[in-house]
């Protein structure tokens, strides 16, 4: 069956046809769809885990039991799951195991630009890196065999452009792989010093065998051109940009297995070309390897370690080197300067009412990762920091421990329901146990929002949308040692302000659960849009301070766009002149 697939769907098909039995993941752009597409198959176990570490350990457990398994995460998710990864490298696997990790060069939807290839090198685990959906399918499918042949988990590295670009893939049939027998093997699977010391030499031997494989495998290939003036070693989407600019007119060594890298293949290639380049996004991983072989090469001095490349990057760089390029594009004209359009919280977003309350009261806000990170932008400018998943709850504890009562009464942490499950809980335990008078607001919109609506342990549904055990957040916070736990509706500004001021004033830690489902959820029915009575509107712009995209200012008056407004009523509470309300016709 030939089908146009995004890279992530192709990975899902590759894993499925490769005989996967279990997938456990935590959502994260640009990796999320791998697991969503796998969840469409009812003959395998699929799940959203509370975080990436749990997901990877679950996949490990399935592998230990003899089943082929996988987990998927974004690059920063691999930081969370790094602990099991490094030791799984020692234990190896029983059923084949694939760890999919998606990097985000240019940070389309991320907080940093880290290069996951370093994890492959550091954990001594082989890594595959496809260039398009067709390769993503083939590499994902073959990764199970590689994993079982070499007794190792396999990292499959995607990036945003490959994860979210479509091309035609020829999807074959699913291979039914019988589970392997479970045999107790203490010296392989119990990693205490005595046994781990026995495993480390096995890891080093495996790496040598994989190095030999790298010289001759389906992942790395040489495309020799008649022209030997220029030779380019490249991988991932950079390969596509090189081919877009040069077609078959320069010689290319395409790397599909960035760890371990081949030696002889690179030496042979370098010997055949006059000038050697390495073109790779982010860090100089291949370049450092080539240089360590004592081969002269041009890499990061010409191609930045920052952001994404494109065919233009490649074209401009070679033009600057004096290389002739065919068909340099000619623009019609320069684009005029226009106002930016940054992403923002949706019309009727339940986070807005709570943020408005915090900004109005000049509260310091330690933020976290999710849709609510958008509270950082104008006009709210509500946040003071955002670091990583869960860092708001642990961060406020340190902040208050450092400054004491000076900040305890005017600082809050904000964290979403899914992020709280991911890694906010442990921070809350620390607040209770090590006693700072901190106030945590859980922005509970009853879904994992930013990544496109995935269920989580607080929603009451599993990945299939079937009813599941639902974490009782109030009871959980009590159990973690917090006495003061209260729930408010963020559409009710008065209730929000009361809750925030009272809990900040309280002489003990507290949790406010700001609870209202995301307006984009199908079961949330929009109310009638509001309108502005232009006779009553004085043009004071107070309603615009909360940054609702439905409200604009035209001819000295506020105006509500009825195609966007969902009738949440927060602006109506802000207007001192009773100008907002009523029903639009």
């Amino acid at each position: 069956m030939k089908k146009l697939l995004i890279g992530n769907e192709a990975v899902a098909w590759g894993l499925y046809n490769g005989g996967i039995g279990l997938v456990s993941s935590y959502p994260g752009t640009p990796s999320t769809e791998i697991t969503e597409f796998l969840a469409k198959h009812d003959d395998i176990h699929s799940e959203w885990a509370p975080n990436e570490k749990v997901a990877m350990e679950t996949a490990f457990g399935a592998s230990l039991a003899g089943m082929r398994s996988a987990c998927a995460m974004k690059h920063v998710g691999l930081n969370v799951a790094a602990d099991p990864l490094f030791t799984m490298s020692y234990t190896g696997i029983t059923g084949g195991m694939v760890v999919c990790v998606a990097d985000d060069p240019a940070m389309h939807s991320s907080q940093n630009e880290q290069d996951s290839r370093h994890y492959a090198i550091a954990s001594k685990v082989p890594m595959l890196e496809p260039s398009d959906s067709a390769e993503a399918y083939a590499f994902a499918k073959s990764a199970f065999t590689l994993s079982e042949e070499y007794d190792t988990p396999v990292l499959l590295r995607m990036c945003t452009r490959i994860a979210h670009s479509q091309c035609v893939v020829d999807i074959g049939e699913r291979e039914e792989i019988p589970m392997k027998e479970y045999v107790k093997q203490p010296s392989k699977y119990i990693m205490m010093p005595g046994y781990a010391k026995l495993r480390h030499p096995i890891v080093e031997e495996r790496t040598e065998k994989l190095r030999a494989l790298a010289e001759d495998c389906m992942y790395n290939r040489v495309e020799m051109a008649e022209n030997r003036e220029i030779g380019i070693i490249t991988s991932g989407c950079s390969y596509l940009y090189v081919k877009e600019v040069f077609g078959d007119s320069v010689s290319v060594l395409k790397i599909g297995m960035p760890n371990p890298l081949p030696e002889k293949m690179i030496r042979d290639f370098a010997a055949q070309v006059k000038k050697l380049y390495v073109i790779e996004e982010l860090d100089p991983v291949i370049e450092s390897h080539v240089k360590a072989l004592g081969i002269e090469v041009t890499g990061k001095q010409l191609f930045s370690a920052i952001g994404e490349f494109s065919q233009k990057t490649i074209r401009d760089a070679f033009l600057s080197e004096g290389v002739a390029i065919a068909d340099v594009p000619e623009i019609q004209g320069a684009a005029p300067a226009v106002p930016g359009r940054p992403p923002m919280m949706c019309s009727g977003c339940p986070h807005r009412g709570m943020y408005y309350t915090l900004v109005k009261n000049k509260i310091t806000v330690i933020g976290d990762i999710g849709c609510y990170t958008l509270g950082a932008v104008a006009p709210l400018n509500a946040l003071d920091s955002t670091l990583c998943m869960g860092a708001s709850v642990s961060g406020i504890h340190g902040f208050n421990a450092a400054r004491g009562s000076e900040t305890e009464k005017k600082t809050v942490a904000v964290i979403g329901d899914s992020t709280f499950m991911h890694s906010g809980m442990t921070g809350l335990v620390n607040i209770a146990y090590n006693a700072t008078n901190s106030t945590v607001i859980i922005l509970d919109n009853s879904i994992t929002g930013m990544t496109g609506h995935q269920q989580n342990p607080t929603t009451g549904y599993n990945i299939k949308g079937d009813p599941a055990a639902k974490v009782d957040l109030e009871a959980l916070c009590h159990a973690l040692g917090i006495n003061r736990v209260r729930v408010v509706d963020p559409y009710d500004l008065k209730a929000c302000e009361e809750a925030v001021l009272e809990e900040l004033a309280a002489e003990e830690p507290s949790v406010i659960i700001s609870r209202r489902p995301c307006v984009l959820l199908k079961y949330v029915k929009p109310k009638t849009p509001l309108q502005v009575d232009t006779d009553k509107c004085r043009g004071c712009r107070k309603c615009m301070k909360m940054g609702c995209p439905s409200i604009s200012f035209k001819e000295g008056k506020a105006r509500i766009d009825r195609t966007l407004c969902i009738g949440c009523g927060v602006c109506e509470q802000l207007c001192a002149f009773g100008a907002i309300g009523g029903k639009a016709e």
Partner: protein
Amino acid sequence: MKTTSVMIVGVGGQGSLLASRLLGTLLTDEGYDVKVSEVHGMSQRGGSVVTYVRYGDKVYSPIVTEGECDYIISFEKLEAARYAGCLRKGGKIIVNTQEIDPMPVITGAAEYPADVLEGLKAEGFDVDDFDALAPALEAGSAKSVNIVLMGHFAKCSDIPKEKWIQALNKVINPKFLEMNLKAFDLGYNS
């Protein structure tokens, strides 16, 4: 055949993903090598979004850069201007005349440029502007603006209308098919 590049640009939430999937499916059925690049995640939340569709005998890069784009299909006026620099000499911009204020305009930090399309025309850009919102509302929902625009683009393409209809039948949820077929037709004839 030389690769043809199309950019579908607009504001997150306007339905550019479905439009690019429609075009991708159609071109694949027509036997072209096709690459489509989408946008997911944070940038979707009301921000400026761009998806790329490229087709030809052999397409490598999934993205479109300066001076490479044959057609820009814009769901909003300001966004047409934002990406105009990607248009190749002699390329064409199809644009919905709808205005959606970005946050800097809402907060008063910037003004929505008054004559942005006239400016492009004066610079020699081939701009085909029309109101896609009214036909979308006529078809039954403001959300069908994407299909109205694709209907209008279909008229410029050299692919027969019935092939477009076939592709619509493939990619649109049957519940909304009738509305979208109407939207497509209204776009095609406007």
